[in-house]
């Protein structure tokens, strides 16, 4: 039954890809879907690009086994979206073309800025991809009873096909279908839970408290160190505004106004979904029970599927499992496309070719890059079987928040940003995040089993974000670039009014 839904989803998305492939002729189509996506479509696609299986199965599992503590994640994954809207979306759309590096490089020296930005992008994309691929392998094995390696290869192959042939148009529609499935599935599951409590969520929470004690409705052990919680919170909040695959989506809409409206839609959809995780998590706790959930999977990932099986039988379990698979595919396709854009648009065209390249050649290189990244993701996914890679999602957010976000904000709002400052900020963000993660308890204690770690925080964002800002400002003041400052004044019109004549 589950396999049936699985194949139906694959068939539908391959149909979309075939349709999109016939409309993907130029780089503008491949990277930006011809800038033809409407604000509402982009809102759904952003939600589909962003909500990973970790947030669907992971948070539901966390809430069902720990109660309130899981909800801390539900809020953390959402609060970056207002920041995307207020600081980034519109200027990004008006100043750039395909990647966020376009915006930073616009008034600075292209070559060093593009190299540094591509490094930050690729580091973010690769770590996020590894986390998704390994997660996909384990989940698909659990849900569909397919071997780990085969599951990773199927995921990688589907992702490569969508991006390679259908580019951004296919990726967008896979993300829209996924968002619809995920929101519909969560609504249906949540509705079935609430129907047992006369549609009163507080009655559900009260039932959880009656069975497992009032403590499940109150903060527990998760936030024992405030600094740790703030550091993770900063990574989630500012990382969302620096994720390359999210930023790239703003180039798919016709103009800045649509970019703005699409974030409003996306925030509403994602917020609604995370509110539903309250119901799904406590519903699984009360109806399935934490012991049964932990018995099925120690990480709690089976909470939502088990709840679906209990409430709707095998067909509903199959549907929810297919939704989880769709969720993974939509995210990895977006990630791969943004990585391919960094390799082709930023590195090949603007560094190797010095900005002079035919559209045909850029498209060809982007397709090679897609296959290369896809094969790399599959190889890393297969080789890391059984490793705990959950921390890599938090690492990807920390990288995005430290390497990409500060340079982007400075480029948009600070006239005096110079090439030296921007490059120093992006390199410092990337390298300091990687170094501090390596020295953190996450690697030293959890992975390498050492007794202690050099750096006390599991997530380094509390240190690395301010550091990247400071280095960017200091570098710009030490090596000023009056010509870049003059170009900022000249670009003021474009930042607000957009590309003239578009």
């Amino acid at each position, binding site marked *: 039954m589950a396999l049936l839904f699985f194949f139906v989803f694959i068939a539908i998305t391959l149909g979309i890809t075939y349709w999109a492939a016939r409309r993907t002729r130029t780089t503008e189509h491949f990277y930006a879907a011809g800038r033809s996506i409407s604000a509402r479509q982009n809102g759904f696609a952003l939600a589909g690009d962003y909500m990973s299986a970790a947030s669907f199965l992971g948070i539901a599992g966390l809430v069902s086994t720990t109660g*309130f503590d899981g*909800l*801390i994640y*539900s*809020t*953390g994954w*959402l*609060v970056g*979206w*207002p*920041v995307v*809207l*207020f*600081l980034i979306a519109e200027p990004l759309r008006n100043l750039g073309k395909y990647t966020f590096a376009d915006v930073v490089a616009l008034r600075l020296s292209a070559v060093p800025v593009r190299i540094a930005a591509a490094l930050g992008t690729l580091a973010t994309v690769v770590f996020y991809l590894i986390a998704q691929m390994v997660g996909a392998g384990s989940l698909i094995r659990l849900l569909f009873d397919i071997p780990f390696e085969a599951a990773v290869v199927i995921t990688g192959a589907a992702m490569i096909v969508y991006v390679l042939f259908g580019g951004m148009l296919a990726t967008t529609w896979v993300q829209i279908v996924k968002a619809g499935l995920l929101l519909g599935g969560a609504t249906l599951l949540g509705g079935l839970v609430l129907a047992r409590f006369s549609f009163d*969520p*507080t*009655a*559900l*929470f*009260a*039932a*959880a*408290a009656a069975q497992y004690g*009032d*403590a499940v*409705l*109150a*903060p527990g052990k998760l*936030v024992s*160190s*405030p600094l740790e*919680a*703030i550091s993770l*919170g900063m990574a989630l*909040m500012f990382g969302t505004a620096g994720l390359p695959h999210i930023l790239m989506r703003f180039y798919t809409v016709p103009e800045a*106004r649509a970019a*703005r*409206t699409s*974030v*409003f839609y996306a*925030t*509403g959809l994602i*917020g609604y979904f*995370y*509110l539903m995780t*309250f119901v799904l998590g406590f519903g699984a706790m009360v109806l399935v029970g934490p012991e049964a959930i932990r018995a099925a999977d120690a990480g709690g990932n089976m909470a939502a599927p088990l709840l679906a099986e209990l409430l709707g039988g095998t067909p509903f379990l199959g549907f929810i499992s297919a939704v989880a698979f769709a969720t993974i595919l939509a995210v990895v396709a977006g990630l791969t496309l943004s990585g391919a854009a960094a390799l082709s648009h930023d590195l090949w065209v603007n560094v190797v070719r010095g900005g002079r390249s035919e559209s045909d050649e850029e498209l060809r290189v982007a397709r090679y890059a897609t296959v290369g990244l896809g094969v790399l993701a599959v190889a890393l996914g297969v080789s890391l079987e059984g490793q705990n890679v959950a921390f890599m999602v938090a690492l990807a957010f920390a990288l995005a928040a430290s390497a990409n976000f500060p340079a982007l904000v400075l480029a948009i*709002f600070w006239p005096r940003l110079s090439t030296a400052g921007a490059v120093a900020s992006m390199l410092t963000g990337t390298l300091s995040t990687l170094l501090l993660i390596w020295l953190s308890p996450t690697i030293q204690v959890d992975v390498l089993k050492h007794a202690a770690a050099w750096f006390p925080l599991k997530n380094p964002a509390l240190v690395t974000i301010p550091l990247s800002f400071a280095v960017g400002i200091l570098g710009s003041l030490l090596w000023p670039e009056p010509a870049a400052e003059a170009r900022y004044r000249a670009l*003021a*019109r474009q*930042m*607000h*009014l957009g590309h003239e004549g578009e």
Partner: protein
Amino acid sequence: MSERDAVLAQLAARRARIAGALTAAVMVLYFGFILLIAYAKPLLATQLRPGLSLGILLGALVIVISWALTWGYVRWANRHYDPALDELRK
């Protein structure tokens, strides 16, 4: 600087102020919530009615208010920022 440039600079400064204030608001909202979790655990455990702890209510409010802030910004931009830009385009 022409008159147009001056109008644009003023508009840019206004948008930056609003964007900055709203970003600060969402940071206070979320990090305030985290600090309450860290330092006021018993307070958040208080149940306003059976099943509804203050912590759960505030968690839901963080999500709802975040969305309301994006709504507020979009409303301002549609009513004031866009018409001002249209003036400049003429």
